[in-house]
């Protein structure tokens, strides 16, 4: 544990040593800068240390892993991997899912990393078509159900999933003697007028997932009519999950005006886990009836041109192993695909998951994403 901290600290100080050198050049003319620099050094909490970097002979190798912003891992898990393989893992967080994939594609001739984790099933075809990965048939795939293995050629391997489902504010429905919605059709009823808030599918990944749910249920010919019905029933559209959940939704701590929101099946459990005051029951619940949720699956792959092929394969195996998989729910708010991974008891108690989720073929999503989004924008926003 201290090993990781130590090395992070050395890195900070190294970079400050660099700043120091830089300030030296200009300090004569710019005392402001010098003062700020000193302030920065103090605040960075780095007393001048021995500048010499001691190359530690035990871990000469580095593996670079590129991920999206939401990636997280515990110190213990990382240390296990680093010690077992005598390697130092460096993480590059490359923005949200779309941004990081863009970066992986634009740098494919001169890759930034050995491994890239974070492409999901809505972007999968795009990543495969661009040929950024090289295939690897990990032995751990044996423990992963076939429904998650969307790439039959093993370029992209499934790591985790999350279900995008409608969430509702339980108190609102009990107070108003109303049954929570059970199907997408319910949302068109007069009883649910002005209750729903969703995200713009062009800017938000749960928003896109919900649009895909409606396409799966009503078909390419029918989803626009369904959305026109939602508009007639006064659906509210905002650009991102944060605003929908914390500003518009009445079940979150933001206490907005609308009691139904598009979020995840796991959100109610997190309302308990991260409550302000300890809660017995989550204040919200997810609608999990058949074909109302969309399953997002996230994948890892070894980048073409990876410098450390053997280590990269070890890392992929590690991400699919129970040790890493078990901490997915607490670290990243998503769930393991490895059937051997055990869930924390909290999730056993509060997590309710859908049995049948709506499905759209990744190749169709890649081919028609733009057409669908444009038609949706035309029908709902204009």
């Amino acid at each position, binding site marked *: 544990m201290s090993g990781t901290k130590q090395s992070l600290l050395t890195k900070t100080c190294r970079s400050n040593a660099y700043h120091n050198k830089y300030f030296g050049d200009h300090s004569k003319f710019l005392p402001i800068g010098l003062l700020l620099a000193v302030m920065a050094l103090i605040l960075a909490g780095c007393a001048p240390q021995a500048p010499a970097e001691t190359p530690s002979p035990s871990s000469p190798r580095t593996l670079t892993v590129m991920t999206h912003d939401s990636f997280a891992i515990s110190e213990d898990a990382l240390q296990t991997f680093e010690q077992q393989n005598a390697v130092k893992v460096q993480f590059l967080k490359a923005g949200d899912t779309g941004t990081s994939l863009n970066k992986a594609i634009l740098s494919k001739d001169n890759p930034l990393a050995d491994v890239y984790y974070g492409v999901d099933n809505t972007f999968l075809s795009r990543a495969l078509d661009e040929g950024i990965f090289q295939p690897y048939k990990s032995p751990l795939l044996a423990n992963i159900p076939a429904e998650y293995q969307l790439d039959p050629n093993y370029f992209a391997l499934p790591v985790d999933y999350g279900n995008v489902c409608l969430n509702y*504010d339980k108190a609102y429905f009990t107070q108003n003697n109303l049954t929570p919605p059970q199907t997408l059709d319910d949302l068109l009823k007069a009883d649910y007028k002005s209750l729903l808030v969703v995200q713009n599918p062009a800017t938000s990944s749960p928003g896109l997932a919900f649009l895909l749910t409606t396409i799966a249920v009503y078909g390419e010919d029918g989803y626009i009519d369904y959305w026109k019905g939602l508009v007639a029933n006064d659906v509210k559209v905002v650009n991102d999950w944060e605003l929908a959940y914390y500003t518009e939704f009445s079940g979150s701590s933001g206490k907005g005006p609308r009691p139904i929101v598009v979020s995840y099946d796991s959100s109610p459990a997190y309302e308990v886990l991260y409550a302000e*005051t300890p809660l017995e029951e989550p204040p919200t619940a997810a609608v999990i009836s058949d074909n109302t949720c969309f399953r997002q699956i996230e994948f890892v792959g070894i980048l073409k041109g990876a410098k450390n092929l053997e280590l990269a394969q070890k890392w992929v195996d590690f991400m699919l192993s129970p040790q890493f998989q078990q901490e997915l729910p607490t670290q990243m708010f998503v769930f393991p695909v490895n059937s051997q991974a055990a869930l924390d008891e909290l999730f056993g108690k509060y997590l309710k998951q859908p049995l049948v989720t709506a499905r759209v073929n990744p190749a169709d999503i890649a081919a028609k994403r733009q057409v669908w*989004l444009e038609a949706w924008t035309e029908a709902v*926003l204009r």
Partner: protein
Amino acid sequence: MHRNGKLKLPSWAGALVLWAAPLAFLGVFYLYPLVNILKISFTHSDRAVSPLIQALSSRSIQHVLWFTVWQAILSTALTLLLGLPGAYLMARYDFRGKALVQALSGIPFVLPTLVVAAAFNALLGPRGWVNLALMALLKTTQPPVTFVNSLSAILIAHVFYNTTIVLRLVGDFWAHLDPHLGQAARMLGANKWQELRYVSLPLLAPAITAAALLVFIFVFTSFGVILVLGGPRFATLEVEIYNQTLSLFNLPIAAALSIIQLICTLVFSIIYTRRVKHLARPLSLHPRRYTQHKLSNWREKILAGALIALLLGLLTTPLAALAARSFTRFEAERGQHTLVNASVTLDFYKELLINRRQSVFYIPPVRAIGVSFSYAAITVILALALGFPAAWALSRDSKEQKSPIDYINQILDPLLMLPLGTSAVTMGLGFLVALGRPPLDLRASPILVPLAHTLVAFPFVVRSLTPALRSIRPRLRQAAAVMGAPPLQVLRQIDLPLTGRAIIVAATFAFTISLGEFGATAMISRPEFPTIPVAIYRFISQPGALNYGQALALSTILMAVTAAGMLVIERLRIADIGEF
């Protein structure tokens, strides 16, 4: 003017020396990445029609372009409407707490949009204090005020963010104008308005135009405000570039839109450069203690009080609401659409100090503050070191005769604004494709963040310094030179002292821009070195009251360290610049 040939410094060569460093920096870290990404984007195009024509002929993109322009004009006008009276107050009067008012008015500038949205929401949202009070008063269950996702939200947020630009740029210039000119006009029978119209405003014109241009380009390329507060029905070019790049992977169209945005920026900058050349006049600038007086009579006190109340009301009430919320715990009475029981708590702040998930990426708040300050320090130094020579070169042009310097300046001046008009997404990807080969493999280097911040800060530094440098009477420099001072001594003893305040203003801008920048930082920062805004974003993107509370707590910390940083910069005095 140039009676003595030796005084025409700097000559051809001199101008080039001044321009060398800024141009080298912009060339390597701006132009080279930009050209690379645009080139790659266009080679991705498989259609026969040029993407530029395709973009310009699309009706929805014409719509976007039109909206971008008119909301920018309206936002700039509103910002000037609030900012100019505020600048007058700051310039001409000395009152207790002035430094604090100025620092508070600068805070919005650094806050990430998601936080500003949360701040306005705490005040004007469906369950904000205003709506809660109105609902109790009117006895309704529906919130009477709709704020989020409306045009007024966009306009108010733009004014909220950018008023500080007008306050600082115009206010500090105004503070050094000789009040005797106005007094002379009054003596000759002009009334207050005539004095303002025919004396003060013409003299202030360079600073006002500079501020207006900066505000305009900022709101013209507005991204977060439109996306978060404006909502899905509004899109500027910048938002459309983001959508086309990251959601639709339509790189050719995104590149075409980037170019349209750059051309617009260039056109506005050229118009500005043309206008401002005729506006600038050499002035005798005076230290503030000669130009300012205390609020003397009741009428002045009431007017000033009302103005301060208006400024603080708009600029700091949302911040106060946010800070208050970060110390408040609501009892769990979910779904009750009435006022809930609230109590004071430090829980969110305590939670910031705990690595509850044992995450490798856990960041103690002190660390994020340290990283943010380090980046800000480098940005201030780089931006000043590059901006001062550029501004100095710009201010050297002679009015009477056409010299080579004039031509160089005329071409370069508008180009300096381009980094402000460039989309953060485009730049982020540009760094990626261009800076990936040795000796410049900076793609994963932490130094990339302050370099990107410097690109944004640089035009601000140049625009804050140029009006002050231009207004120095050439005779002062000439006199110094006649008495035998070499160019460097002229710089140190004439230009630096007379522009001391402007340098402080420039430094403050660079500092706050770096502290608050989120778009580019999120794309290129390393997880070990997150800035405060990046750390805030990590919390606000997760469900659970504790995560939301921590985001608000960290935002409050960001506001506090920003205000502290600005007060420190205010107090900094450089040796002989002290007076100004």
